[in-house]
């Protein structure tokens, strides 16, 4: 029975204070799992980039009960889909569940994301009775497949992307199954450290078990179960109240993925949001059809991208299954946002998810501009360099993920070098990279001029240059916004585009798909240069206070020429504002804008 149907809850038997205390308690269990997982993990993607998430799921429905606040945002709500897949499989196959069992699963089509996100799903028993599920996801640095790291830019079927695991018991009654482990380790790169991640991932759930058991012992299983139902109902109510404040109407937004990595043509996300009363309906049925390359999105990722976008707009709403109730998502069958086997999907969690979020922002900014912002850089900027270091006599795979500018908003200019929309990760320090890999960074700097012009301008992206010092290597990248910069809002201009350039033997090479490429051979002395996108501008750039433009120029964010061309602010050689010339320039622009409108 769904706990919200319990008579006690409807009658309001559970007192509101115990409810808060249990809510905090559940949250703390999840946060502690997040913390333990990150600190014990080996994969830098988990320990530094925090690409992991932990949560508690409903015993029967698999719905989200609570999720760690320190987890990667893209996992908002996703693990409930994989937990549901495990529950369905257990029911269909009559699999017995015992204490200490732990399922491993990474199948994208069973409520997943991409293959690198490996989930552990564990039945939680209290006094011998199944009470809930604990689950976590960790991004493994490799899962086999054609490219080290798994971000293939041009796979055409999922088998090329790596090892796909259906839900199987990796631990049986608390004992690691050495046979399944051997299969996994025989199919992935740098396998020797994975045992560390596997143990860390399992240990985080074990810590969660201990803390959840203590919570239940303290308040009683019935009370906790009632509280879970009541918290869901209240989160739904809170979400509805939040939605109700948005004006009724239909709002459209769109966003483009540069290409699928195989066919050099943009993919379009057509987002239509209908707001009626207390419900938001998301319809993406006008989007591009499934693509050949790995930029397809599985439905679980498509849904959680929308949840994530909504959470970014309304950060104060708590996350549990109730939050999602008033969000209706029309399943976009027949588009690249509803991928089915064997479509390749490695780009969905890192890139397509961010374009989906961007399309939601672009639509909602029309409804509630005061709460929104222009588009953020919105790419994870994955670069991997795999090679052999002759000095140390070993192979390596180096990952670089980078930030970019955030969009301007009524709250201010966008943040420079903000992390990806779906992430909350720290970049690996340059000093750490240079310790581990045979590279020398030649530059790590603000990408001048990349902030989209606006009354409130976009934040700046980043430039970095990496020189290979010795040996040979291959570089691959899955990035985005190389073709179109992050869009501006309310009259603001787009941010700067993502740029990649590789100088091999002194000859520059630009990937044909701009932001995606695979297996580019480089040698000692060759240079990889990347510029990440700037954020979109918000509002008419000609309305930006000239003093702020002058300050931006003094700081080198823009040149004097850009100040004139993009903001209509004329500065003299010393950077002082020429008020008359500025006024004249801006007046002309406004006059011509009016003419254009009439035309």
């Amino acid at each position, binding site marked *: 029975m769904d706990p919200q149907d319990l008579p006690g809850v409807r009658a309001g038997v559970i007192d*509101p*204070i115990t*409810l*808060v*205390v249990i*809510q*905090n308690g559940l949250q*703390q269990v999840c946060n*502690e799992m997040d913390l333990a997982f*990150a600190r*014990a*993990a*080996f994969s830098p993607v988990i*320990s530094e980039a925090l690409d992991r998430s932990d949560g508690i799921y409903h015993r029967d429905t698999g719905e989200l009960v609570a999720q760690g606040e320190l987890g990667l*945002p893209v996992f908002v709500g996703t693990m409930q889909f994989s937990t549901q897949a495990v529950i369905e499989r257990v029911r269909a196959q009559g699999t017995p569940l015992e204490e200490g069992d732990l399922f491993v699963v990474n199948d994208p089509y069973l409520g997943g994301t991409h293959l690198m996100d490996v989930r552990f799903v564990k039945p939680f028993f209290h006094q011998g009775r199944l009470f809930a599920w604990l689950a976590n996801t960790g991004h493994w640095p490799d899962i086999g497949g054609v490219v080290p790291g798994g971000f293939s830019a041009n796979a055409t079927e999922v088998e090329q992307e790596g090892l796909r695991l259906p839900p199987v018991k990796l631990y049986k009654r608390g004992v690691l199954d050495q046979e399944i482990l051997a299969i996994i380790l025989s199919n992935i790169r740098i396998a*020797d*450290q994975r*045992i*560390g991640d596997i*143990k*860390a991932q399992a*240990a985080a759930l*074990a*810590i969660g078990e201990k803390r959840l058991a203590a919570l239940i012992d303290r308040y009683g299983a019935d009370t906790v179960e009632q509280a879970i139902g009541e918290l869901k109902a*209240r989160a739904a109510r809170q979400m509805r109240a939040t939605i109700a404040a948005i004006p009724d109407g239909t709002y459209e937004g769109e966003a483009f993925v540069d290409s699928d990595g195989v066919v050099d043509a943009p993919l379009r996300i057509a987002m239509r949001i209908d707001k009626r009363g207390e419900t938001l309906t998301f319809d993406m049925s006008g989007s591009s059809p499934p693509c050949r390359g790995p930029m397809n999105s599985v439905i679980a990722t498509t849904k959680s991208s929308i949840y994530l976008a909504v959470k*970014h707009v309304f*950060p*104060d709403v708590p996350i549990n299954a109730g939050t999602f109730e008033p969000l209706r998502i029309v399943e976009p069958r027949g588009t690249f946002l509803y991928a089915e086997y064997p479509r390749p999907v490695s780009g969905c969690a890192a890139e397509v998810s961010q374009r989906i979020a961007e399309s939601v922002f672009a639509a909602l900014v029309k409804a509630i501009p005061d709460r929104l*912002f222009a588009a*953020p850089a919105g790419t994870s900027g994955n670069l991997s360099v795999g090679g052999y270091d002759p000095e140390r006599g070993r192979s390596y795979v180096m990952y670089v993920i980078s*930030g970019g500018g*955030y*969009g301007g*908003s009524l*709250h201010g200019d966008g*943040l*420079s*070098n903000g992390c990806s*929309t779906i992430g909350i*990760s*720290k*970049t*690996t*320090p*340059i*000093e*750490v990279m*240079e*310790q581990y890999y045979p590279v*020398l960074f*030649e*530059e*790590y*700097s*603000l990408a001048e001029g990349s902030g989209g012009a606006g009354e409130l301008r976009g934040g700046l992206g*980043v430039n970095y240059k990496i020189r290979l010092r010795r040996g040979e290597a291959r570089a691959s990248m899955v990035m985005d916004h190389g073709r179109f910069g992050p869009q501006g809002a309310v009259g603001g201009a787009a941010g700067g585009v993502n740029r990649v350039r590789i100088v091999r033997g002194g000859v520059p090479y630009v990937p044909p798909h701009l932001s995606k490429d695979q297996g580019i051979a480089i040698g000692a002395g060759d240079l990889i240069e990347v510029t990440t996108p700037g954020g979109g501008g918000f509002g008419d750039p000609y309305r930006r206070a000239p003093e702020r433009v002058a300050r931006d120029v*003094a*700081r*080198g*964010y823009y040149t004097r020429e850009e100040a004139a061309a993009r903001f209509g602010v004329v500065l003299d050689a010393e950077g002082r504002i020429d008020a008359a010339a500025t006024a004249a320039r801006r007046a002309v622009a406004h006059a011509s804008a009016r003419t254009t409108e009439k035309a």
Partner: protein
Amino acid sequence: MNKIAGVDVGGTFTDLVLIDEDSGALDLAKVLTTPDNQAFGVLAALEAAGAALGELAAIVHGTTTTTNAMLERRIARVGLITTRGFRDVLELGRRTRPRPYGLLGSFAPLVERELRIEVDERMDAEGRVVRPLDEAAVARAADRLAALGAESVVIHFLHSYVNPAHELRAAEIVRGRWPSGYVTAGHAIISEYREYERGVTAAVNAAVRPVLQRYLDRLRGELAARGFRRELLVMQGNGGTVAASIAAETAVNTVMSGPASGVIAAAYTAAQAGFPNVVSYDMGGTSTDVALIQNGLPQVSSELELEYAMPIHVPMVDVHTIGAGGGSVAHLNEAGLLQVGPQSAGAAPGPICYGRGGARVTITDANLLLGRLDPRRLLAVDRPVALDAVREAVDRELGRPLGLAPEQAAAAVLRVANDNMAGAIRMVSLARGHDPRDFALFAFGGAGPLHAVALARELGIPRVLIPARPGLTNALGCVAADVRHDFVRTINRPLPAVSADVVRGIFAAQIAEGRAMIERERARVEGIECIHRADMQFQGQSHILTVRLPGAGVGPAELHRLFEEAYWQRFGVELNEIRPVLVGLHTAVIGKRPAVPLTALAAGTPGAALADAEIDRRAVWFDGERVATPVYRRERLPRGVAFAGPAIVEQLDATAVIEPGNRVEMDVLGNLVVTL
């Protein structure tokens, strides 16, 4: 004459403890803090205590000068000289955002972009010179920064933690052209890898150094003018002190010193009382600080952040702060759930009961309504508000919407607040592999003793210690603190590749440097003690686990064993498949200062019997009903008294609540030891 004064500057009050180390005689003072120049409050406190400055052996000072300077960004104009290609490191940060959800928010770097100048130079990760230092460019950069009005300079080069030669040479060049001497080299503050953290820490140092120098110069001048001839010591975030004469050189060490002195006093007092393992719990008007003390030593961390993207990676007492204090506001969120804090009513308008126009229910109001605080004895109250007005407000704001009577609603506020604070204590204990039930709770601050017993009950902590002077704990921490210098050195090599000689050599160098500093300070110490720690991880990990070492002569095999033990305790994971890495070595060089007698703290006018201390009897709300409860005057409690709860114990600056069923005993130092 062997008197020493501890003066701690808090947000509202400046507290002073004056102890005669020979006789144990004690004087106390509490005056208002003077935020613009804290020195006035310090002098006023000394005067109020009747201290004859010419006769003082030492003054130990806890100041928030640098903390406030950072939080309000009233800092020096700083220039940066850095490696070519990397001047934006301090602005780019490490690619995060202020909050996990919501793409708004901003970040202002400590050094403006115009003041960040690149020069040719480069080391690689092994410390080999890739590009030599362009010395002429350094000189030009210094001149340019001076022309741009920079007051303080930071020199921050990549990989200086492994080879500081370029930074040292550049600092020498800049010092030659920088009359004020405000030159900070990154590696000199922390010799640790991670360019952002090291750079920010150095930039913070540069930014607050002139501020602290000016403050201390003024204070020393004022003290000298009043006849003070001996040493002025300053509290640091590591819980130790440093001579005022050299404190500003490493000013960053004082930025997070505020909570440290309280933790030191807790450790000191609890150890004397026979409780080496305690959780210190300091609840004030706007926030609560908790910290874990094991074997009499506070836990130390080098991974704290002052605010978003402002890491200060010097070793500091590991204090966990949450926004729960007497002024924390209770409200219902959009889901109709009761929340307490982190918003605070502050001092103005303050709680409703302060009568300054506050209309929102605070924790203090809830305590008042439940009879736990005496409405006639509120500190800092202008126009006391009738209890009925508080009851009406609680009813209107919380009671009616929740369907609870006012008292029930007030009790709910305390329960939720206690639950939040218990969460903070779980974070410093359980989440780090310690069971809070193995600790005692040491409660201080204005509101700590009010909530301590309920909090301990929530956590299963068996004992609560309420010190003799809960409101003066920080000042006491100043006089109890030792002189302390911390050193960190990055190694980052697999443990099997590190020889015992290397470990010994590094520790020996750190000890020598610490001893030299203590000598230079000319502080009066009775001996020198060193604490050694190792940061370790398994190969391939990025997080570290810090392990306390039994001594400086520890070889790789023992390091390995200690690490595996600590790893098991923390994560419940055994990993013999992977080899460990020694990331870094720390040494704390501690100059032990003379022991401080605590018995005088208990001094008062003790009555002959418990009844002599009873000043009132109130109906206090416990567990759903009003219970007639005796109210005792702390100073009148007979020495060594024992009694049972319920009881309220009132003293000048704190009120303790003892619940029904508790047992209380006063120990020889005047601490109340509550057994739950």
